[in-house]
């Protein structure tokens, strides 16, 4: 609740003036030395804060190295979003989902990661809708499903491609006579349910951290929905789920290394002119390094409202990389791994403690009002970023939140209509769908074959695979850790398995001679680990899945890879 600076290796309480001066001094020194610097924005921060974070990077620190965690996952899925409605009072995505007659959920476990969406799915089921789940294993929702399409670690797309073929055949047949031959029973059942859909809904959770896999799945979903329309159904709802609530807003504001605010290309003359007029000086227009490579590339980093280790595949490696930086300035409302490693900690207001706008997936910009007094010496995020811009000598120095907001309206044409009264209206101001021409297109099937995976090579009989599942970890999110009402599944799972756990098919466990909670020894070409197992009756045999919350334990075995071959024996 107060600023801190690192002195003799330890953080000590400081005044705001001291802390801002220390941040400016360390960043300025690195800037003058010409070493690479970076900025991390966040889907946990407001549009105004993200816009200033971009200005800080491109004008004050002269770097294009800026990004948000898990941007790739979002960008792979977001262009696929298809939500009806143009006016604020059109049905929301929730209402459309609840009105669907068939719901397809591509998930990790939506009931855990996105419980509000799970609620709408349950409401649809109560009304008599049918459900198809798709994933690495049976989730809680699978127990209510008419069919489950199991993805295999070896070739995750195979099952979905088979489903698409089966559906394609089914819709070519006489409507209502959807009998599909030549596919497994589960895929046949799923195709049969889908073929009868009049108004389907597809929910795409960020169930994997690999953007290429998500993009390939997105293109298959697009093909599935095309077939549904051919088969006489209405245009399906497609609802990709973001990991953080304002990811769309952060990316619209330009928190990405390869696009300018408003998602304009870096060489767009009009966008450059508008930004130059607002920011002044000579902004850096070059493409920088993205999130995944940033930690190994930069020497100085400003982290705004995020913790890079929380979404890193090897959290302790990310933490060591942060600790070895020459300057780490962390602005956050919570104590995180990043703030513990920081040289300067600048405490900023959390949601509800400050005013700011956010943009939903469907492009509604709404204002969140300050409704409680900021505790301690906490300051609004926009003010802290503005002070950093000023300290670093940038010509853009907004003096109020309105000032920042007017800047966004001037710099980003899509946001020109977002005035304060519009954003306060129920439903906010619509800025439209994500522009599919600007975002990288989802690869079609031919490209999807090139997924980084050891699975491309046939696995020798008897060998095991280890695969990470899910990109979403509630338990790592400080918002969750700080809220007594949200400390739920992952938090409990860690308490139950303090030394980590991997999931194994129950039949594999029997063959190996282990039971629930027993430990196994894992060895790969990279390293070794010992970890407990939890048993699942339905998941691919021969594969050990690593719940994302427990990835640290097996990180030496995987060494950053998504899938590795491992030897497994009872410990």
């Amino acid at each position, binding site marked *: 609740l107060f600023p801190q600076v690192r002195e003799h290796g330890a953080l000590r309480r400081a005044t705001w003036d001291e802390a801002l001066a220390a941040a400016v001094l360390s960043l300025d020194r690195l800037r003058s030395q010409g070493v690479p610097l970076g900025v991390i924005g966040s889907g946990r921060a407001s549009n105004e804060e993200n816009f200033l974070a971009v200005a800080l990077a491109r004008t004050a620190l002269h770097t294009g190295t800026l990004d948000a965690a898990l941007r790739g996952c979002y960008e792979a899925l977001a262009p696929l979003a298809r939500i009806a409605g143009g006016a604020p009072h059109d049905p929301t995505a929730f209402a459309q989902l609840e009105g669907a007659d068939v719901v397809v959920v591509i998930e990790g476990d939506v009931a855990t990661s996105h419980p509000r969406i799970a609620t709408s799915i*349950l409401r649809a089921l109560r009304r008599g809708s049918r459900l198809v789940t798709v994933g690495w294993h049976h989730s809680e929702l699978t127990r209510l499903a008419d069919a489950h399409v199991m993805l295999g670690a070896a070739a995750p797309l195979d099952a979905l491609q088979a489903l698409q073929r089966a559906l394609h055949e089914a819709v070519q047949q006489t409507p209502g006579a959807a009998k599909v031959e030549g596919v497994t029973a589960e895929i046949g059942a799923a195709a049969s349910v889908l073929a009868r859909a009049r108004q389907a809904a597809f929910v795409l959770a960020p169930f994997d951290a690999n953007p290429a896999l998500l993009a390939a799945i997105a293109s298959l979903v697009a093909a599935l929905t095309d077939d549904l329309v051919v088969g006489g159904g209405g245009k399906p709802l497609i609802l990709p789920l973001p990991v953080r609530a304002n990811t769309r807003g952060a990316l619209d504001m330009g928190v990405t290394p390869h696009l300018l605010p408003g998602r304009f290309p870096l060489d767009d003359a009009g966008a450059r002119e508008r930004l130059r007029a607002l920011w002044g000086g000579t902004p850096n227009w070059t493409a920088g390094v993205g999130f995944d490579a940033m930690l190994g590339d930069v020497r100085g980093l400003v982290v705004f409202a995020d913790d890079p280790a929380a979404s890193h595949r090897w959290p302790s490696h990310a933490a060591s990389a942060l600790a070895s930086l020459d300057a780490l300035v962390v602005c956050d409302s919570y104590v995180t791994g990043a703030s513990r490693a920081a040289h300067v900690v600048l405490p900023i207001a959390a949601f509800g403690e400050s005013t700011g706008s956010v943009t939903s997936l469907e492009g509604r910009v709404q204002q969140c009002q300050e409704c409680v007094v900021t505790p301690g010496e906490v300051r609004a995020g926009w003010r802290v970023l503005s002070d950093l811009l000023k300290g670093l000598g940038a010509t853009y120095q907004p003096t109020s939140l309105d000032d920042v907001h007017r800047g966004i309206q001037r710099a980003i044409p899509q946001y020109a209509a977002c005035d304060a009264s519009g954003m306060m209206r129920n439903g906010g101001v619509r800025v439209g769908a994500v522009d599919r021409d600007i975002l990288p297109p989802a690869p079609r099937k031919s490209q999807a074959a090139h997924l980084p995976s050891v699975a491309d090579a046939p696995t020798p009989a008897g060998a095991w695979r280890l695969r990470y599942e899910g990109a979403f970890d509630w338990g790592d999110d400080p918002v969750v850790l700080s809220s*007594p009402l949200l400390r*739920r599944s992952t938090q409990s799972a860690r308490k139950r398995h303090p030394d980590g756990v991997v999931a194994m098919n129950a039949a594999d466990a029997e063959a190996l001679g282990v039971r629930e909670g027993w430990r196994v020894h894992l060895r790969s070409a990279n390293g070794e680990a010992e970890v407990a197992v939890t048993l699942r009756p339905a998941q691919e045999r021969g594969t050990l899945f690593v719940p994302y919350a427990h990835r640290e334990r097996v990180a030496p075995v995987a060494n950053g890879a998504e899938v590795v071959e491992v030897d497994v024996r009872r410990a």
Partner: protein
Amino acid sequence: VNSAARTISRHDVNAWLALILREWEVIAPTRGAGGDEVFAPIAMPEDVLWEFENPLAPPKQFLLPQTEPIARFRRADGHYTVEPAEAPRPRVLFNVRSCDASALAFLRDAYAYDLPDDVIARRAASLTVVTLACVTPCPVGFCVCSDSGPFLHRDFDLQLTSLGESLFVEVGSDKGRDLVALAPALFHSASDDEQARRDSAERETLGLLGVETCHFGSAMRRISTHRVPEALWEAMSPWCVECGGCTHVCPTCYCFSVADSKETDGCSTRCRLWDSCQYDAFTMEASGHNPRAVRPERIKRRFHHKVSAQYFRRDGRVGCVGCGRCVKVCMGALDMPTVVAAIRRGSWSGVPAHA
């Protein structure tokens, strides 16, 4: 006529409240910062709401705070000293609904059995509960099923009933009598007619609630005689997203965890925090064994705890007061009326009883 019953004119209520506010902290339904109706301390009589939807957060927090310091440890000169929690402040809970007043009594008793909890007992003793009887049933409440409303016959210090231009005031305890004694001139002995109007309001509200549709007793018998099939809990399980919302808004849930918070000056505070029996590590033991590691077991435990006859046999209470908050908050379909209906039928459809 109840000889202790009084009436007070609506015009005089604020003058009475102003006198109460001089001596006590008063918690009442009021408009919160965002415009929601909440239970919160009020600064002036005009802050009290008289027409309100019962707030989603019950007044439980004023007896059992969400985070409650129970002891403070101080280290000095190589020795630890333990200081007890601060003494509770005397408070008046004003315009509490009957269900919530019953729940406060339930919590007080729950912490008084077996190993009496002194902190809760002292806080309960320092609370004066003034209820506002319900003359209109709330949309999802079912208090009549668990004998905790719409009017109370115990568990209040004062019970107010609106008679239009005046309030009918029933005194339930010495604490209630003390509140009336603050301004004796403002109160008048209730007449036969006023008593009759109060009784008629209770009858009419009971009629509107539909006593004949109550299945709580039937579910209690089935649970307490072990006639609920295990498969029922299995079938319910996927309809819960394990958000813990039901337990956090429930006015009678009292499960807690204990955590120590370290402070910078060498002190640490041991706190009691609300926890939820629906979370999967809640019952995990130090050995690592977890008797309720799977969700059907946790759901079974919750409803056995609330619906079984254990409290009823002990003191005539039921573990649910029928406030209906779980109906509003459940993200799946496992609210009390739906589950009670399923227990009674012995089958689960996933469709809420109140849909």
